[in-house]
Structures are given as C-alpha cells and as structure tokens.
C-alpha cells in the first residue's frame, strides 16, 4: 500500500505531466497565439524579427512550466480540504 504522502505526490505529478503533454501537443497552435515582432525603419533586426519568431513565446512557456506544479499542488490541497 502506498502511503498518503506518496499518493499525493504521484497524483500531483501525473496532473502536471498531463498539462505538459497538452502543451507539447498544442505547441504549434500556442505559438501562433503570439504575434511576430515588427520590422520597421530604424528598428532593431535580430533573429526573432528576421525569421518572424515570437519574441516572448518561450518566456511564457517557461513560466507555465514553472507555475504548473505550484498551481496543481495548491488546487489539490484545496480539493482535499473541501472533501474533508
């Protein structure tokens, strides 16, 4: 029998991984939600502007990666409290 701590951990991690999987499968669609950087006269042209790469897409993705476990465990704790 798994003890309670381990159960919570496994449950939490499985939800987190599910979220990651959804992100992975919808990666292209998510990328198109972000607008491409502008290229104009006198404006900086680097890789992102030249190849039309969304500048802050990966930053946003990174924070989703970081915050998902926190949100999942917070939600789990609230649900468990509510059930009690």
């Amino acid at each position, binding site marked *: 029998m798994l003890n309670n701590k381990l159960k919570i951990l496994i449950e*939490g991690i499985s939800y987190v991984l599910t979220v990651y999987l959804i992100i992975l499968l919808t990666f292209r669609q998510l990328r198109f939600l972000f607008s491409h950087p502008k290229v104009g006269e006198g*404006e*900086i*042209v680097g890789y992102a502007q*030249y190849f039309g790469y969304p500048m802050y897409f*990966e930053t946003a993705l*990174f924070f989703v990666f970081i915050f998902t476990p*926190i949100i999942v*465990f917070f939600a789990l*704790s609230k649900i468990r409290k509510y059930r009690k």
Partner: protein
Amino acid sequence: MFLPETILAFVFLLIVNLKDCFFSCVNYLNLSFDSQIPLTWDFTVLNNMLPYKDIYFPYGLLFYFKNTSLYISLIYFFLPILLFFSVYIVFKTIFKSRIITFIAFVSFCLFIYKYTGIENFTRYGIILSFTLLISHFFYKLRIISFKSAFLFGILVGGIFSLVNDQGIYSLLLLIFLLITVPVLRGLKKMHYVKYLLSRLIACGLGLVLGLLPLFVFLNVNNMTNEFYLFIKHLSDFPLYAKTPFIPFSTTIDNLFAFASLFIAIVVLSYKIFFSRTKLSFISILEISLIFILVMLEQKSVIRSIDKQITFIAFILYVIMFSELIKNKVSNLIIYSYFAIIYVFILLGIGLHPFINYKLSFDGNLVRSFFSTNMENFLVKKSKLCLSNNLNRLTEEKNTKLEKVKNIIEEDSKKPTKIFDYLSDPAFYILFNQKPPYYFTIFEATPLYAQKSNVKYIEENKVKYVIYNEDIVRLQDGVPTQIRNKFLFSYVLKNFEILSKVDNFIIYKKI
C-alpha cells in the same frame, strides 16, 4: 570550529588560485569570435580605455580591471575562495556529519574545476553565495530588522558596483524574499504591509550607500551619462540577441538544470501546501535557489547560457539530497550517491564543460611576482599573456589574419586605420589601434550603435574595412545587410573592394 581536513582543503584552494590567478596565463584554445572579444578587452584596458565610456563592456568593473588594478585584482583573487567558503558553510550546516560535508564539498569543487571553470564561477558564484548567505539570515532572523535590511542593501550596491548583472539578481532576490518569507511564515496582513515597506526603504537607503563607490568612480572619470546610457540600452539585448530556445533546450546541460528546477518546485509545493512543518533552512534555500535559477533561465531563453549555470542546479540537487537523508538513510546510500557523482565528474560523463581556455603556468611570472611591485607585475603579466595568446593564435590563423594585415600595409605604405566589420576584433590588436565602442556584431545592431560605428570610421579617417564573409554564420543567420543596414550601406557607398583573402574582403576608401 574548522576541521584539519577543511583547513587543508582551503589552503589547497588558495595555492591553486594563486597559481591560476597570478602565475598562469589564460590561453584561449582557438581564435574564435568568443575568444577574440576578451582578448580585445585585455588590449583596451592596457590602453587605458574605460568601460562604459570608451568601450562596451557588460560584465562590470571587477572583470574589466581584474588584471590591471591592484585592489580589484586582490578582490578577484580572494573572491573564489570566499565563494567556495560560503558553499562549505552551508554544506556543514545541512549535513552535520563532517565526513559527508567534506565529501560533498570536494564534489562541488571538482564540479567547478571540471565543468564550470573558475572564471565563470567567480561571476555567477556571486549570486549563488549571496543566495546562501541571505537564506541563512532569513532563516535565523525570523523578522529581518531595519538594520539588517539596510546592510543587505549596502551589500547589493557593492555587488552591483563591481559586477552589474549579479547586483541586479541579488536585488531581485532580496526583494523576493522580503515579500514571500513573511507570507509563508504567516505574518498578519496589517503588520506585513508596514514591515515590507519599512524594509524596502531600508534596502533602498543601503543600496544608495553601496552604490557610492561606483558613483564616485563614474564622476571622477566623467562618465555618469555614458553609464546611464549603458543601463538604458541593456533592455535592447533581447531584441538583437534572441535566438530560438526550444530546439536547443534539449541539451544535457539544460535538462540537468530543468530537472533540478522541476523536482525542487514539486517538492517545495508539496511541503508548502501539504506539510504542516515550519519553514526550514533547507526550504528557504530551495526557494532562493529556484528563484535564482528561474531568473538565470530567462537569460538562457534569450541566448543559451546552459553550461554556465549547471553548478547552481548541482547545489540544488545536493541540498535536496540532504533533506532526503535527514530521515535516517544508511551511510551506504549516502556514500554511493557521492561515489556516483565523483565518477561522473572525474570521467566527464554527461555535462559539457564551459571552458574554452587552458591555464598555462609560467615560471617567469613567479620570478616577476617576487621581484617587482604588484602594479608593475600586473601590467607586465597582462601584456605577456595578451602577446602569448596573439602570437599563438595568429600562427594558427596566419594564412588569414597575417595576410590581410600584409595586404593593407603594402597598399597603404604607412601606418593606417582599419575598421573590422564586427567579427574579428583581434585586428585592432594587430594594428595596435583603439577599437570602436561597439566592436561586436550583436551590440552593434541597434541604429544608435551603427551610427556610433559610422562616426568612428569618419573621425578616425579609416582607410580600410575588413569584412569576414563568415559573419552570418558567426551570429545567427541574419544577413549583415539586414542586421546592420545603415552601417553596411555606408561602407558600400564609401569604400570599394581592394582584395579578397580566404573569407576576408578588404574594402578601401574611395
């Protein structure tokens, strides 16, 4: 308090650092774009050019003057020892057992020497040490006093004065901990707002005091405005340096850091939301290290610095392991864990080192160290190391750099001025010429930087422009005529092709 083996380890570190810092030259392994840049800075500091004012230098006064200023070179010498010491103290606190502390500490030292490189550790280790120190205080002092917050502010100001980016990270961490730790400790809302505001004010006052030496330096050298512009233009960095992260994020180094972050966040989230225990020292350490790694990863998302920051992930793993073994784990498991780490480090399995140089011991430097005064010795050493690197590197590339130089000298028949089109700044050292403020392709991207380079060409009456056709590959595939449209058009309008040597096109003033 300190055990014989620990004292021995520090004496050993001191000797190694003395050899590396004063008796050895940093010899770059190749004449790549990345190696030419630090060599050019070594050249500019020897030519009394100042950072912020005369040359673009993003790493702070400590790294610019480390080889020429007496006081700064002494700080640079003792800094790594201090950084290692802070790691040792934390290991001693969390492990309790002297043998395990020693084993963990040696594994960390090996990791630094094998993968991180002492130069990189001296830079990013500052924020690591600050994290360890401040976590200790936030744990020990349940409420951070006004005086402590003021002292932290001074420390942050001092760090910012010497190494700008580390100072910014330190400040953000300090603010983050001031905000979060009282919340996690359940401080009442009424007290919290008052507490937070007063501590932030104290930090701000301390920060101003800590920044005083920098302001004095800027004022004495009449470059306050240039420093302000330097800080203002830092926000342009993501715009010109951003490269895709996702395709390159699957490196073993990045995954190593990512995995440590993921595990630490999961463990911490569990502890905060499900465990009723008080906020421990390890938890505060984990919170701080997660915050630091998240901030550093933001830079990595723009332009990968995955190899530079693996040692912070390494510390995070060791700290998490220390929590795991708190609950009576057999010594066999502990020793096996560190044995595996030792094997991985010593055999160099997995991660990639961030070391593109070799430290070469020079007996002449030892003699010189004891026979001349320190300031003369530093200048002598800098010149010797620069010339060693240049001789070795131009030999390696003699078919290219020397040929270009010879063609220009034959054509001009007298000393002349050149402009390297932002890819091979070693040419400025070869021609013994002060480089422009923005001498690399990335920093020279914004329009103000292009205009500054055109001004340099005009003011110095530059006769020759050296253009490396590989420049597009050196950077990120963006054609020069797009990235530097203004500068490139200027060169095409005012210069014509004189000759072509390998991948170099030499333009001559019309």
